[in-house]
């Protein structure tokens, strides 16, 4: 029984987001530029 529980616990702790998700975030970050003009901010997303 203990073995089953410890195996499950290890599996849960190993869960990571998809590589594509991380890659999307890094690309999004590189493409995003936020300009603040006065009280307003403008998001510029470069393609």
């Amino acid at each position, binding site marked *: 029984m203990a073995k089953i529980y410890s195996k499950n616990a290890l599996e849960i702790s190993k*869960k990571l987001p998809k590589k594509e998700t991380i890659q999307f*975030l*890094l690309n999004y970050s590189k493409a*995003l*530029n*936020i300009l603040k003009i006065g009280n307003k901010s403008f998001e510029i997303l470069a393609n």
Partner: protein
Amino acid sequence: MANVPTSDALLVKNYIAGDENSLSILINRHQSKIYGFIYSKLSDRDIADDIFQDTFIKVIKTLKSNSYNEEGKFLPWVMRISHNLIIDYYRKNKKMPMFRETEDFSIFSIMSDNVPNIESQLITSQVESDLRKLIEELPEDQKEVLVMRMYQDLSFKEISELTGVSINTALGRMRYAIMNLRKVIDKHQIILTN
């Protein structure tokens, strides 16, 4: 000499200054904790990925717009964002987290209602009936005061007026009534609890 890992605060500062690699380090460093937290609340990989993505989109926007002011507490801040997004997700879908019964956890251990169950109602009824019988055994003057006070909810002033005795006498009769009830209960080892 071992390399000392760069602190979150410094990475955040570098990222705000334009170092995109700092974001990559921050994500790699905390992805397991953050994704694990989100997944533990949703139990669905696709939705967890969406929430993880939305969390970091918020993080990126906040950092790039220079609105971040929690230096040194990066992880709790990100966790709070993801927590709020999880709540939003449940609100949007009008869903509540699903609990599964396991050997260690039963949903009925945290669910209860205020309505007494049949067993509890039967016990209460039995206790009240037993108590009534005991009261019937009291001397008439004591029984009269106790019934007026406990069952008719009269004040001692009203009892004294109705029975034609002083308030102190009524109080004394009540006291003796209770003492006598206790004696009988102790003597016969009657259990009057629900």
